[in-house]
């Protein structure tokens, strides 16, 4: 890592500064946004920019997985929940957990110390052989990651997956609801519909005449009567069903047959 400064070319610098600025702006926007959806979008921006930085640093697999898993799946689920639940700026921002701020500041300080210590340790103490040599061992970046995950870090990898599966199972158990009976299927529903002499298919529409284009107008039957099924029962119960205007019909007949003239 001694010749880092000399290794960087202009393109790399441009990518770094653009992505770094976007990533930091995204992180700030995520904290400062008042709308939950906007926060989610800002953090998605941060993640995508981090992924671009990974790719620029010759870690294409990591960058792609970052986008697919974090931006594509995790943030998408967050968005889902936020949209469906409808968290909004109008919601109360009173903190319900006591000492939340102090705890979060302490925790972030601790994390920062850990990270700085860990990364600093790595930079100072260990000897780096360079990316080319590291990739050379297994014949490529992806192959190298695969080799490490499935040999040296197999246990950690499997434990992580077990943790995730446990979380998924927990969510399923919490969301599970035992049904007493199966939901009725199309077949059962249609049998039930016809068993008691129900009406096949849709009920007849209300009659639409020239003068009353409304649901309180009953449909005309071929025999000249009216169909009770065509008027909603609520309208019938209120007594609002419009009686058939036989005079009008007679008039129409007269006009069409030219008798009135």
């Amino acid at each position: 890592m001694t010749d880092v400064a000399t290794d960087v070319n202009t393109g790399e610098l441009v990518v770094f500064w653009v992505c770094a600025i976007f990533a930091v702006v995204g992180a700030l926007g995520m904290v400062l946004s008042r709308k939950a959806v906007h926060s989610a979008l800002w953090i998605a921006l941060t993640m995508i920019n981090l992924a671009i930085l990974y790719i620029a640093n010759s870690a294409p697999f990591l960058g792609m997985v970052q986008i697919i898993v974090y931006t594509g799946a995790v943030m998408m689920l967050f968005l889902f929940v936020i949209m469906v639940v409808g968290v909004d700026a109008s919601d109360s921002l009173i903190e319900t957990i006591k000492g939340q701020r102090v705890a979060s500041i302490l925790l972030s300080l601790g994390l920062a110390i850990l990270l700085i210590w860990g990364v600093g340790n790595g930079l100072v103490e260990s000897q780096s052989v360079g990316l080319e040599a590291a990739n050379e061992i297994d014949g490529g970046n992806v192959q190298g990651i695969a080799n490490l995950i499935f040999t040296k870090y197999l246990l950690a990898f499997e434990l992580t997956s077990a943790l995730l599966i446990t979380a998924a199972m927990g969510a399923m158990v919490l969301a599970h609801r035992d049904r007493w009976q199966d939901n009725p299927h199309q077949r059962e529903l249609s049998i039930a519909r016809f068993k008691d002499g129900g009406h096949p298919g849709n009920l007849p529409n209300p009659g639409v005449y020239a003068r009353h284009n409304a649901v309180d107008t009953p449909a005309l039957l071929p025999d000249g009567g009216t169909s009770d099924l065509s008027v909603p029962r609520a309208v019938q119960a209120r007594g609002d069903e419009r009686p058939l205007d036989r005079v009008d019909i007679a008039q129409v007949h007269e006009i069409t047959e030219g008798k009135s003239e």
Partner: protein
Amino acid sequence: MTGSQFGLFGTDPWWLVILKVLAIFVMLVLLTLFTIWWERRVVSRMQHRIGPNRVGPQGLLQSLMDGIKLALKEEIIPKAAHRAVYWLAPVISATMAFLAFAVIPFGPTVSIFGVETPLQLTDFPVSVLYVLAIASIGIYGIVLGGWSSGSTYPLLGGLRSSAQMISYEIAMGLSFVAVFLYAGSMSTSQIVAAQQPIWFAVILLPSFIIYCTAMVGETNRAPFDLPEAEGELVGGFHTEYSSLKFALFFLAEYINMVTVSAMATTLFLGGWMAPWPLSLWEGANQGWWPILWWLIKVQIFIFVFIWLRGTLPRMRYDQFMKFGWKVLIPVSIAWIMIVSVARVLRNEVSVTTTDILIGGAIVIVVLLVGSWLFQIRQDRREEAEALAEAEALSAEFDPMAGGFPVPPMPGQQFTYTSRRSLAQGTTIVQEPAPAGLEASSDDSSAEDSNG
């Protein structure tokens, strides 16, 4: 390609990169215009109509005119819309649709103005993952479009659409795994090169079928076009969009269709390589000819898209999700298991008659396990049914079971109890239940359909 893995990639001069980007952009826009016209003509033929035939030869310019008209239309932005996000959503959709094409190989190395260059914008070790990543960002456009419209139907359409795309993306990603195993690479150009003797569609047929199913779900096309189910959701996520913003969504949808078709071509149909009878001719896989083979293969996929739309009715949403999660994903996982076992055996064990024996053994094991699982399921179902029946017949309804007032279980008769008499421990007063309380689910559904 000789030398290092990605020999000529990343060595293009800047003007050639810009030229390639422009060529891909123009090609995608033209392909979109063509596909819309082609779809309308083919569907018309399937429905005994004529279709657009007025503007240009055979109506070829119809979609161009429609596009111009769409762009010049009045733009209506709903009052409740979240302006910035509402604006951002179609932009994300369209940009991501174009971006995915950066890694699609169109042909072999050719010479453009004296520079030797592959007919592909770029390639890197994980370019297939790149396409998946871009697709997953593209979903943001749809979700945000649905949400920012500030209206119910678009929100529901957006949620449906993203749930659908995420679910089918899993099946799609799993169908790639077998290809990666056989090609030994995740880069598109190397996957094409690995299909030299035989296409992956032939040796990895189940993966191909799974991919083809998932790609229709991924692009929200019929019979999986639930996000745009007109009868339920008006237009789905883009209901509140108009003018150029709607045009961008429209463009993105058609480009996505071309993208998934191009991916299918690249991963399973040998990419730009000439198909069998043509490959006998020496020059078929050299120079500019492969672009033609590539285009024909992609057009075949697009024709199948249109054919499906003209043939199949839309699926019900729950059936569709069940199909994705309970059929496609388990089947692809099982198939990956089989493929990787076969790979390991071929790598570790010498290839002799054992190969055949092992293959047979695998088939037998799969059949045995399958029938065993089926038997267990059948037994369980019968047992549960018998148990439920017995319970329903034997158990008497206890309205205070466990010390709490509870409703009757299915099959139990509802009885009225006098609390005072229960407290005194004397008699249970049994009265006939009123009609309203006894209505079973069947009756209520019949009521619904009548009301």
